[in-house]
């Protein structure tokens, strides 16, 4: 079969050349023993020849009781590639921080060898473990074996998608809160919201430990949790001197890149005006041994990021400037329950929460979720005079 596979994939074979690890090699490894992987390779070769995809929209497919976690997929050339006529993908809740033991990975591999294509993504864009392609009648067995092994499905469709987080305090000195515990708690608390669609559209939560934002929370999450601190940067002057002695140009490489120019270096001592620091992380990134986030740690909560479709891409914007780490989980839970209540009721079909805010206006959204406006929410106040003045029931003007 190996030779047969090779002779039929002339174009894909070109992608086994070169130093970067090859996905074609991966597909061929699986194809040696798995007919689904073999037909996937065949169909992909056809796509390469014709420069067009050969998958149809999914239908109704999933495991009993859940409305998320399985992506239905069907070949439009099933007569040529019968083993991928159905080729449904499972999304599986990943453990926080994508940590595994060899034993856990082998368990997953064994399940997927018995019931699917033997191909995976480690991991999908949202963060889930992806089991790439199986037949409809294998879905329930694979689900049952997964849950026996302690794993569960992730989200798809109009649900909360599996939350994700950076490596956080497990292996990073910059994490301003416990991203992994937060992500894990949220994933556990909202299993119902992940598995049983009740929202207008998808909702993503991503937790980054600091403003370097290693999980791209600000670009990809409807609710972005980004670690920060409130007090002064912790500074070790002896270590600053060490960096300078080792050849770091503190003026040029640190002070000159500070976005608010809040640092001064006189050749001996680094002085930081912490009142003007925006906590961008640059100086800390450059001198991890000398500078670190302050002691009063927590996170900023931001709302509304999404990709372009349909009204244009959005980055998340500040909703709560600072939540102390100890109050973070409870605050997030209270906040999302208010957001979900409002969005579920007033959101249009397929309207992300960021688009809802665009449609009704941020002030109306703040009213709806019971948050007071604060200047940290904007880069500047409005520059147009079209104010929707409101009066309270008692005739007083509202602020």
């Amino acid at each position, binding site marked *: 079969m190996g030779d047969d596979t090779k002779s039929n994939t002339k174009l894909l074979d070109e992608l086994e050349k070169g130093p970067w690890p090859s996905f074609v090699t991966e597909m061929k490894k699986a194809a040696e023993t798995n007919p689904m992987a073999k037909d996937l390779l065949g169909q992909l070769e056809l796509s390469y020849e014709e420069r*067009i995809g050969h998958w149809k929209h999914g239908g109704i497919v999933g495991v009993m009781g859940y409305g998320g976690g399985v992506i239905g997929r069907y070949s439009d050339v099933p007569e040529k590639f019968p083993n991928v006529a159905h080729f449904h993908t499972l999304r599986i809740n990943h453990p926080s921080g994508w940590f595994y033991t060899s034993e856990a990975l082998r368990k997953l591999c064994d399940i997927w060898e018995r019931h699917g294509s033997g*191909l995976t993504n480690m991991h999908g864009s949202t963060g889930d473990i992806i089991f790439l392609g199986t037949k409809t009648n294998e879905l329930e067995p694979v689900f049952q074996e997964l849950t026996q092994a302690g794993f569960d499905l992730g989200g798809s469709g109009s649900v909360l998608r599996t939350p994700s987080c950076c490596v956080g305090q497990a292996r990073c000195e910059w994490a301003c809160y416990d991203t992994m515990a937060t992500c894990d708690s949220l994933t556990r608390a909202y299993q119902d919201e992940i598995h049983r669609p009740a929202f207008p559209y998808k909702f993503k939560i991503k937790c980054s430990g600091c403003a370097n934002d290693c999980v791209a929370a600000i670009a990809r999450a409807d609710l972005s949790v980004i670690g920060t601190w409130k007090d002064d940067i912790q500074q070790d002057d002896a270590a600053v001197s060490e960096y300078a002695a080792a050849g770091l140009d503190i003026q040029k490489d640190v002070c000159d890149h500070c976005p608010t120019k809040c640092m001064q270096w006189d050749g001996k001592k680094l002085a930081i005006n912490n009142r003007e620091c925006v906590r961008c992380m640059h100086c800390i990134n450059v001198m991890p041994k000398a500078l670190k986030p302050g002691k009063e740690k927590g996170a900023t909560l931001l709302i509304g990021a999404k990709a372009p479709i349909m009204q244009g891409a959005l980055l998340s914007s500040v909703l709560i400037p600072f939540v102390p780490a100890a109050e973070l989980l409870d605050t997030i839970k209270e906040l999302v329950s208010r957001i979900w209540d409002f969005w579920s009721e007033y959101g249009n079909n397929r309207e992300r929460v960021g688009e809802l805010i665009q449609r009704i206006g941020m002030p109306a959204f703040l009213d709806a979720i019971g948050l007071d406006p604060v200047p940290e929410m904007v880069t500047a106040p409005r520059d147009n005079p079209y104010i929707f003045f409101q009066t309270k029931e008692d005739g007083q003007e509202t602020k």
Partner: protein
Amino acid sequence: MSEPAKRITDIGPPPYEKFLHPLIKKNYGKWLYHERPAPGVLCHISETGDKLYTVRAATPRLLSIQTIRMFADLADKYSGGYLRFTSRNNVEFLLDNPDNIEPLKKELLAAGFLVGGTNNSISNIVHTQGWIHCHSAATDASGIVKAVMDALHDHFTESKLPAKLRIALACCLNMCGAVHCSDIAILGVHRKPPKIKRDVLSKVCEIPTLISSCPTGAIRPATFEGKPSVEVIEEQCMYCANCYTVCPAMTLNDPDNDGLSIWVGGKVSNARSAPRFSKLAVPFLPNNPPRWPEVVDAVVNIVDVYARNARKFERMGEWIDRIGWPRFFELTGIEFTRYHIDDFKHAGTTFARSAHLKF
């Protein structure tokens, strides 16, 4: 199907704690700083004095169970069975013994998995499913990633750029992944309005949903052979394919007119400058499998020009901020066209509304 009573549901992921290396458990939240002994190797130092070594290797994201088992074997041999994956699809082995670093690197390299991706490098390309598993893909994803990274692999295994450079690829405008905020984004695009399968449309699609799916209002009701249908005002269509997402009878995939666009200067990190979207550099390149030479050349050119001209710590967008867009187009030799000037909603925000010009 077995008895519903036996089914376990809603358990979530396994607790992460049981997957943490004992050294991580002991030093959780106690890390002081880190060093970068070599490309692809990190050393985290704890306040307890403990040191944790990380060895990072590239994966193609699409992994066979055979390869995952090989990673598991390597973890057993070198890192006490503990490993993790990164948000950019790299694999990381977590070691307490520095003597294991070199033998592990050797085995990874022998198996074809490059070690690197740390500090000022080009890490793995975040990407989507493409023709491997998506119905709306305007192009493949994995193939372009492979071809681009073959050309740029020395930027993964070495750390010689002015700053980190993040590349991402999405195979259509739905953009699974943070493509829109990358130093370089490669994006699959369509260039023709949908071809309507009129014979099946009324059977498979909800027409009001279909009409409201169009961001520009280009889809309006019509009848076809006495049945409700739609028509497309073609000059209003900007090929986003949102109609295809809600209705399979609105087909856009087209071998000759689909292709790739390239975007530059986005970032998600807040370091120095604020997070921002990537901006259009190259509006269209042909879909040319198996190795997409036009896309590879365009990306390599942008990386080369950036590497030669940017100052230390300047991300792509920060470098362009300093030199200005006219100079970016001049240095890269990319043609500036009418397509680069925004004409969608809020277009004016990218117009030059000052007399600040560099010549």
